């Protein structure tokens, strides 16, 4: 059983396996199930992700009215041919947004690793598939590779915004996605780890400050940028760029930063964007209380 990224990469490279393969075998061993059973469960999760993106791309609106419809705007913009950052990148962004808009509207999603960060992994997967043309099995492998890196973060640091801030949620999700993109694009296990490290380094310190405590503002747009971050980091790793700080040390740094983060910035809706005048105004409007009554 691998305990950190270094062991995961070593396990994969010494046996000539992909990260996804190592994860599938560990899952079979830990849960005492056959390969077919393990793959079938991931297939069901993939299906939920596909349905969520599809729903979001048609346009949804949350109960609070704070979020919804941005995925559609982005798709229309891509179709107009005016995109500056590139169609593939924006497609990933819009599909990440689509998933999180469905989540905010209390739709059905698959947490990756959490619900608040559920857009990044499927968003990037459903964008890069347009270019890489993966088989169904390769798409399932993408989720196992993401899961392997998330598994290390969850056990050695945290994937909870209340415990570690947004860096632990969207940060982890982006790192997971970057690693999985690299594998799908034909990169090595080491390059997967480099992509994860590069991504997470750029998410360090990100706080969890949801307006009115809702998983909407800024969560949906953090998923958008998380997807963009993952795409760019994957390209950097595939180009041969490495992280000076090893992946496991970046994860450890993330954990320590989370521990020292003030409680007001860890999913309590007391600081950051939640505490801005507009944030407070929205909160009062949504919950129907007068502003001066709160605090």
């Amino acid at each position: 059983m691998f305990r950190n990224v270094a062991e995961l990469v070593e396990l994969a490279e010494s046996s000539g396996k992909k990260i996804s393969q190592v994860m599938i075998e560990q899952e079979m061993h830990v849960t005492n199930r056959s390969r077919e059973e393990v793959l079938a469960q991931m297939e069901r999760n993939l299906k939920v992700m596909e349905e969520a993106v599809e729903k979001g791309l048609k346009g949804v609106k949350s109960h609070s009215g704070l979020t919804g419809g941005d995925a559609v705007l982005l798709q229309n913009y891509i179709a107009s041919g005016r995109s500056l950052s590139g169609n593939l990148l924006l497609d990933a962004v819009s599909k990440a947004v689509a998933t999180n808009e469905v989540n905010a509207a209390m739709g059905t999603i698959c947490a990756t690793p959490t619900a608040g960060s559920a857009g990044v992994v499927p968003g990037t997967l459903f964008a890069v598939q347009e270019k890489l043309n993966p088989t169904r099995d390769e798409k399932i492998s993408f989720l196992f590779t993401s899961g392997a890196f998330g598994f290390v973060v969850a056990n050695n640091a945290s994937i909870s915004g209340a415990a570690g801030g947004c860096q632990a949620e969207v940060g982890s999700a982006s790192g997971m996605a970057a690693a999985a993109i690299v594998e799908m694009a034909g990169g090595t296990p080491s390059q997967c780890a480099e992509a994860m490290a590069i991504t997470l380094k750029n998410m360090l310190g990100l706080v969890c400050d949801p307006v009115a405590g809702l998983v909407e503002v800024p969560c949906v747009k953090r998923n958008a940028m998380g997807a963009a971050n993952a795409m760019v980091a994957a390209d950097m790793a595939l180009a041969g760029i490495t992280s000076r700080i090893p992946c496991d040390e970046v994860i450890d740094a993330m954990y320590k930063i989370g521990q020292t983060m003030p409680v007001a910035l860890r999913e309590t809706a007391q600081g950051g964007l939640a505490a801005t005048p507009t944030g407070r105004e929205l909160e009062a409007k949504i919950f129907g209380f007068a502003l001066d009554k709160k605090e």
Partner: protein
Amino acid sequence: MKYKSVFDIIGPVMIGPSSSHTAGAARIGKMARELFGREPKWATISFYGSFAKTYKGHGTDVAMIGGIMNFETDDERIINAFDYAKKNKIRVKIREEEAVTDHPNTARIMLGDDEGELELVGISIGGGKIEIIELNGFELKLSGHHPAILVVHDDRFGAIAAVSNLLASHQINIGHMDVSRKEVGEVALMTIEVDQNIDESVIEALKKLPEVTQVTRIND
């Protein structure tokens, strides 16, 4: 290691918007329901920390009631859980607590009816994963990821051996076990996580042991 399966990371499939504050809350509620063993007549839920500050936005209250109604994390009835509770005449009270707890996502659930009551403290540790850390005043650690047996017994010599011998005779392997008591020589609680679901006949046999006063099982 807290997380053992890749599906703790890629999963659960759930109703949004938060894995810790919605799916985790539903799971804590469902554990309370399973341990209580039947639909309660009343439920009082106290929220602490981040749960207390943000439960309305995350639907934590709705999800926890849904769990108490025995709904899974991906059951769309969660959204209207309060209506379902009302229809079944369950009296629900929600409390926001100021007290600081060890974990930011902590909830205390009290369930009851004419026949009995249950009090449980659960924490939601991220990604939908939960732990039950207190049950009827006993400290324990229950993940809900394995089948488990909870045994309330007299706190005296031989009680643990009697229970483990009985499990051994049924070829049941103990994966994790801990024992907690409030005072020496009074009642104690054994939490036993096992590898396979437990047959009703084993539970009945455990109940017949002289040291044992109550047995509850949680199947996968």
